[in-house]
């Protein structure tokens, strides 16, 4: 075997001091670590240069009580990789892998398909689903790849922040014969399918029969600078005693690349109001896969690319608001799901278009889907309310000329329009402005996800973020005449014309039959079987 150079004992204190001084610029005076081979080499060189004696030692293969050296048989070294542990992936608060394996839960979903126009009764059908979006899980394990667990047949995924290097450690099992013989491991290389799964390290480590852990691997390249799902394998080689050995292939290694560390929570302290409080959502692989696939290749410039992508994906799945489907606190269960799911489970069912929900529910669902890929910007479940173009100066009701950021107001964010209409005999002291959807059903508001307090995402419709500073302008852009073809951020066609039929009504549902003195003729809406005295914003 090759000689090994070491300091002669007892060590020379002056040379030790000189060696310590030599590495101090790198260590700041802290003790060296066992994995700092290069620094140790520098320490030894400085020790010798300072007059410290060194010697070369060689094993002779003879025990103290043996009469002669053992008969030499040719040395044989075999090696195989036995574990790969990722060190830079996301962990939970307990230090376990953040990504969990979902445990499916059998549920029944009552899918609402319509309303009987004559009776008003709900039309629905019941579907049996094995939901993988619930909170139940089992742990994925470290090492992610472990020969003892079956190697590639049970390789566990990781979640990892984008645009970073991947760090791993591995274990190699060596068998060196004859017994007691050793070799010197000088190089380990992992050839991955991509630079972010390619690792290389030079070292000098004497190895005998047994497991050797090699730490400190940093990938040759960074992960992509966008959200995506990656899968690849690594072919490992080790150089021992100057001979390169194939020590095995690991993988497939599945990497869910996220914008930042997954998080997210949602609670409903009061029915029909959601807040990002309470327990964190469980980051199951299925939930993460949903959002990573939806936001694939986004997040290069900023996180709003990811938000847009999640929004578009929900549109593609046909997620839209369904009246009378919502999550409320016990004992209520209007989710349409049996048994009643947790709020997180329900929101994910809405994301996947398995469950149904009113607009504020699907808005909250979008928020948790964004959070799980690390979107940090503030989300708020909010409401776009219609506003009229006229002032309440009976009987003229002149055009108000109300503006926000220089724009005439057709809608406001989170500010509901109401008026005292008791000036008309038999009318209420509080009438609210509502709008009719395309089927003639009345709506008080359009629920949205407000991103960073300004950009308004109306699920199933479009993104309203013309203004980067005034949410009321963006709410207005929802209620004015706009392009309704496919796509997002469709152009506004006319800021001075309304898109919807508008109606005044009281909270008890009583519809105002004389919104303005000159408007008294009702219009019938066959799809809803209702009639209203309606008007347009510009009327």
């Amino acid at each position: 075997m090759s000689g090994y150079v070491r300091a002669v004992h007892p060590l020379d204190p002056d040379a030790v001091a000189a060696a310590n001084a030599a590495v101090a610029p790198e260590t700041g005076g802290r003790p060296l670590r066992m994995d700092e081979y290069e620094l140790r080499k520098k320490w030894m060189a400085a020790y010798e240069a300072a007059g410290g004696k060194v010697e070369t030692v060689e094993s002779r293969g003879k025990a103290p009580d043996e009469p002669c050296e053992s008969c030499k048989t040719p040395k044989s070294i075999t090696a195989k990789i036995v574990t790969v542990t990722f060190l830079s992936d996301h962990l939970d608060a307990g230090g376990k892998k953040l990504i969990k394996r979902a445990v499916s839960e059998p549920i029944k979903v009552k899918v609402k398909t319509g309303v009987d126009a004559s009776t008003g009764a709900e039309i629905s059908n019941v579907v049996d689903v094995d939901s993988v979006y619930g909170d139940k899980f089992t742990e994925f394990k470290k090492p992610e790849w472990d020969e003892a667990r079956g190697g590639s047949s049970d390789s566990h995924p990781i979640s990892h922040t984008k645009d970073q290097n991947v760090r791993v450690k591995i274990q190699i099992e060596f068998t060196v014969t004859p017994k007691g013989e050793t070799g010197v491991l000088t190089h380990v290389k992992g050839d991955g399918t991509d630079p972010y799964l390619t690792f290389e390290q030079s070292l000098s480590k004497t190895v005998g029969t047994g497991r050797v852990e090699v730490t400190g691997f940093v990938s040759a390249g960074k992960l992509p600078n966008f959200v995506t799902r990656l899968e690849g394998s690594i072919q490992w080689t080790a150089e021992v005693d100057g001979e390169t050995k194939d020590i095995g292939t690991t993988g497939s290694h599945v990497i869910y690349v996220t914008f930042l560390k997954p998080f997210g929570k949602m609670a409903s302290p009061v029915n029909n109001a959601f807040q990002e409080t309470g327990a964190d959502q469980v980051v199951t692989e299925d939930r993460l896969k949903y959002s990573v696939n939806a936001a694939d290749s986004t997040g290069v410039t900023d996180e709003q690319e990811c938000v847009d992508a999640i929004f578009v994906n929900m549109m593609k799945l046909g997620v839209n608001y369904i009246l009378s489907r919502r999550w409320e606190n016990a004992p209520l269960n209007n989710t349409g799901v049996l048994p009643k799911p947790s709020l997180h489970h329900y929101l994910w069912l809405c994301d996947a278009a398995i469950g149904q929900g009113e607009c504020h529910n699907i808005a909250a669902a979008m928020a948790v889907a964004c959070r799980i890929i690390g979107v940090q910007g503030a989300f708020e479940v909010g409401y776009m309310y219609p506003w009229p173009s006229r002032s309440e100066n009976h009987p003229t009701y002149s055009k108000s000329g109300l503006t926000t950021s220089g724009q005439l107001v057709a809608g406001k964010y989170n500010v509901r329009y109401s008026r005292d209409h008791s000036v008309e005999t038999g009318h209420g002291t509080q009438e609210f402005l509502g709008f009719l959807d395309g089927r003639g059903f009345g709506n008080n508001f359009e629920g949205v996800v407000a991103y960073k307090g300004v950009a308004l995402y109306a699920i199933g419709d479009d993104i309203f973020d013309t203004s980067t500073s005034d949410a009321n302008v963006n709410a207005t852009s929802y209620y004015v005449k706009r392009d309704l073809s496919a796509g997002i951020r469709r152009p506004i066609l006319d800021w001075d014309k309304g898109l919807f039929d508008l109606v005044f009504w009281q909270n008890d549902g009583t519809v105002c039959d004389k919104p303005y003195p000159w408007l008294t003729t009702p219009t019938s809406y066959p799809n809803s079987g209702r009639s209203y005295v309606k008007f347009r914003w510009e009327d």
Partner: protein
Amino acid sequence: MLIRSEQVDTLSNYMLRSFVDRMAEYIRSRFVRQTANVSDDELRETIQRGIKRADSYGVTDEADVKRYLEYVASYGDDFDSSEWAAPVLAQSALGTAKMNDLDAANICRLSGGG
């Protein structure tokens, strides 16, 4: 020629005694200050204990045992239970690999000023 097991044992004991003698001479010459107040018998006993302890850690080659005994001479009979040496000696690596790791651990310890 047939060598009976008793003869092998005798030979082994002789070789072991011879090794202890050589190590005693070596340690006394190399570690003068540390052995100044140690009698020959005490030194031989320390070496014999060291050889047994080394064997319990899988360190059996003469050259490696000699290195182990140098640590005994430098840091005491019970250095193997110290915070820096115990984890290395408890590792599964054998013989020379373990002693090389012990050298590395010693440098790490000394580099911190300790």
